[in-house]
């Protein structure tokens, strides 16, 4: 039965079977998943900001895929990878930035690693101790877009958008100042040190400072800056005074400034203007010299007592100081000389007319006109020497030579050397005296006197004299007889005259008596003369015994 029914069913056509093209509702699930996935992917691509590279000296604390880049503590990017540069000198950090920050990534943008650091009296980045470091960013002024940067090693002290002015301070040394050191105005912090560098010749330090608005207007043309670090202790009758800018400045140093009130306030200083940095507040009234010219002077005499720092004076005005003293031996000439290096603060000398004259050329000219260096004793007691510069037009003309890079200023003998030279010339002159000739002549004179006394002439003279005396006696007798009375009257007259003379003489005696000044002077003179006579006789004695003393001096050892 079934067979027949099967047969009969064969006649019925079969339904056409085909696959359903309609997608089942279940396909919505993967579709949604795919859409979400696609959306996420598209967003990732659209949201992707620029990729930048920053170079740092070291990647200390930085982690690829973890370290963030933040601006005002808002995440603006993330470090993607860190690798070394080809020459291993620095690391290159590749960072993906968020899209919004795109416009602010200019050539003026700065990046630095924010770490916990203590600088300028401020502790910053403490949170990074726990969270790890992050890279800070300062967009800076608008500029050309850029995608590669050099990271700063220290955070910029002042972010670009802070209003204020930059100034340069010129100082002899940096002292305890550092980037971030505060700047005080009336003991209120108004700015900070943002950088420092040495001048190209290395003679001074240039410190860049930033002063916030509106305090930057307080910096005038005549404003004085000084180093405020340190303690100013003064003791006087009123007690002990301690002066300091602030405890902070005491610890870390700082700069203070002030515009002198006694002068008319100058015009406001322009941005970037240069000032001199004084060492302390007292010094702001004293000029500070940061420009120095170096010269060398050779001395042949002893420089005992010439220390480093000894003053150099020109006509009594200090113009510099001794920097170095050496001893040099010249093998060719076999003699010693002492080159002394002198630092002359040329700023001390105000130049009239042409203020921009070449200092070196000027010195050369001066040397030609007779500028000479000389050693002088400052204080006789200590024997400390100083160098005196002076114009000596009568000095022998000397060529200007060079000692290494320094111009040489010729020297003239110093004061001590002058004395020695004087004694030497005196001895020389003494030596030239014709002592032997004098002696011979003296002897000849004595012999002639002797001969004169023993001669016959003298005897005949004596006989003649005897005869004359006899005649004189006869004449007197005659005179007694004839002219006696006349003489008596004459004698009377004479007596009167004598009386008057006597009076006159007694008056004169009063003048020359022992108590009178004239008499005393004469006595004194006589005594001196007697002393001189004794001295000459002693000298003569001595010279007789030691003729060589004339050459070698008294007490010199005998050869």
């Amino acid at each position, binding site marked *: 039965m079934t067979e027949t029914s099967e047969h009969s069913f064969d006649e019925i056509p079969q339904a056409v079977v085909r696959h359903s093209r309609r997608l089942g509702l279940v396909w919505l699930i*993967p579709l949604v998943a795919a859409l979400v996935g696609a959306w996420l992917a598209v967003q990732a691509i659209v949201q992707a900001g620029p990729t930048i590279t920053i170079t740092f000296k070291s990647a200390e604390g930085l982690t690829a895929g973890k370290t963030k880049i933040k601006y005002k503590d808002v995440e603006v990017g993330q470090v993607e990878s860190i690798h070394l540069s080809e020459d291993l000198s620095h690391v290159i950090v590749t960072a993906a930035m968020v899209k919004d920050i795109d416009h602010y990534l200019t050539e003026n943008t700065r990046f630095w690693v924010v770490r916990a650091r203590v600088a300028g009296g401020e502790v910053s980045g403490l949170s990074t101790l726990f969270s790890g470091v992050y890279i800070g960013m300062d967009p800076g002024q608008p500029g050309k877009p850029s995608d590669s940067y050099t990271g700063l090693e220290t955070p910029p002290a002042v972010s670009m958008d802070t209003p204020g002015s930059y100034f340069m301070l010129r100082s002899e040394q940096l002292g305890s100042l550092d980037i971030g050191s505060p700047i005080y105005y009336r003991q209120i912090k108004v700015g900070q040190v943002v950088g420092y560098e040495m001048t190209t010749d290395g003679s001074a330090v240039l410190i860049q400072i930033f002063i916030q608005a509106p305090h930057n207007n307080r910096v005038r043309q005549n404003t004085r800056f000084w180093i405020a670090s340190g303690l100013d202790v003064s003791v006087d009758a009123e007690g002990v005074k301690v002066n300091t800018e602030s405890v902070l400045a005491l610890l870390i140093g700082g700069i203070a400034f002030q515009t002198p009130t006694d002068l008319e306030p100058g015009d406001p200083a322009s941005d970037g203007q240069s000032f001199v940095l004084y060492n302390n507040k007292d010094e702001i009234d004293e000029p500070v010299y940061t420009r120095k010219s170096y010269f060398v002077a050779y001395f042949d005499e002893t420089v005992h007592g010439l220390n480093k720092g000894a003053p150099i004076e020109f006509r009594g005005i200090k113009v510099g100081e001794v920097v170095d003293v050496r001893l040099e031996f010249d093998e060719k000439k076999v003699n010693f000389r002492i080159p002394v290096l002198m630092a002359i603060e040329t700023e001390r000398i105000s130049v009239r007319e042409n203020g921009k004259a070449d200092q070196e050329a000027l010195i050369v000219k001066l040397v030609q006109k007779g500028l000479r260096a000389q050693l002088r004793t400052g204080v006789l007691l200590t024997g400390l020497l100083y160098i005196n510069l002076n114009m000596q037009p009568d000095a022998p003309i000397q060529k200007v030579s060079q000692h290494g890079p320094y111009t040489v200023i010729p020297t003239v003998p110093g004061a001590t050397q002058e004395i020695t030279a004087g004694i030497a010339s005196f001895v020389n002159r003494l030596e030239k005296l014709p002592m032997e000739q004098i002696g011979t002549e003296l002897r000849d004179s004595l012999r002639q006197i002797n001969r004169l006394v023993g001669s016959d002439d003298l005897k005949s003279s004596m006989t003649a004299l005897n005869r004359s005396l006899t005649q004189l006696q006869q004449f007197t007798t005659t005179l007694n007889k004839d002219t006696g009375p006349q003489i008596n009257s004459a004698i009377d007259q004479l007596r009167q005259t004598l009386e008057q003379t006597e009076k006159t003489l007694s008056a004169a005696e009063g003048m020359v008596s022992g108590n009178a000044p004239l008499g005393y002077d004469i006595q004194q003179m006589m005594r001196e003369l007697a002393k001189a006579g004794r001295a000459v006789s002693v000298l003569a004695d001595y010279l007789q015994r030691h003729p060589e003393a004339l050459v070698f001096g008294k007490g010199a050892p005998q050869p």
Partner: protein
Amino acid sequence: MNPDAYIACLECDLLHRRRPLPPNGVATCSRCGALLYRTRRNSLDRTLAMAICGVILFIVANVYPFLTLTYEGQEQETTLISGIIALYHQGMPVLALLVLATGIFFPLLELVGLTYILLPLKYNRKPWGMAPIFRVIRNLQPWGMTEVFLLGILVSIVKLADMATLVPGLALYAFLILIFVVAATSASLNPDIVWEQLTVDH
């Protein structure tokens, strides 16, 4: 004899003749009462859809951050792989390997494998090496332990929640859905529709 017309009980091996089932019907063994087969509507379509969905979710779960842990300003962002790498570096390489296999590798293999087999089947084509691959997939199924992995993560989240701030990432949600998708894939799969495609050599 049409082999597809018969089915053996998995438990007692009694051979039965197949018969069509009504909707929501269940065929049981006439001797021991064990489940023989049940109706699975659109088994192929559903399984394939779920597998594809699973692959997409899997990609999302692996690309995006899984969990961000913030503690005292220190931020730790993890992905599935980074967690495993961390385990490896902490001196537990065996455990890391196990987590990698059961949490990522086996489930991924299952999803990709199913897609590989079912997609051609949907268009009446037989993929190359269908039988051995399908057998491997069937054997892998018990080893996929994404739900255990997630459970472990949930426990650690609960424990860490007091100590640190935990920000669940996109991958965590994707992974959560993935578990259900994987379960749905297994549930909707009727292995018979694969085996039926194989011709029997006589």
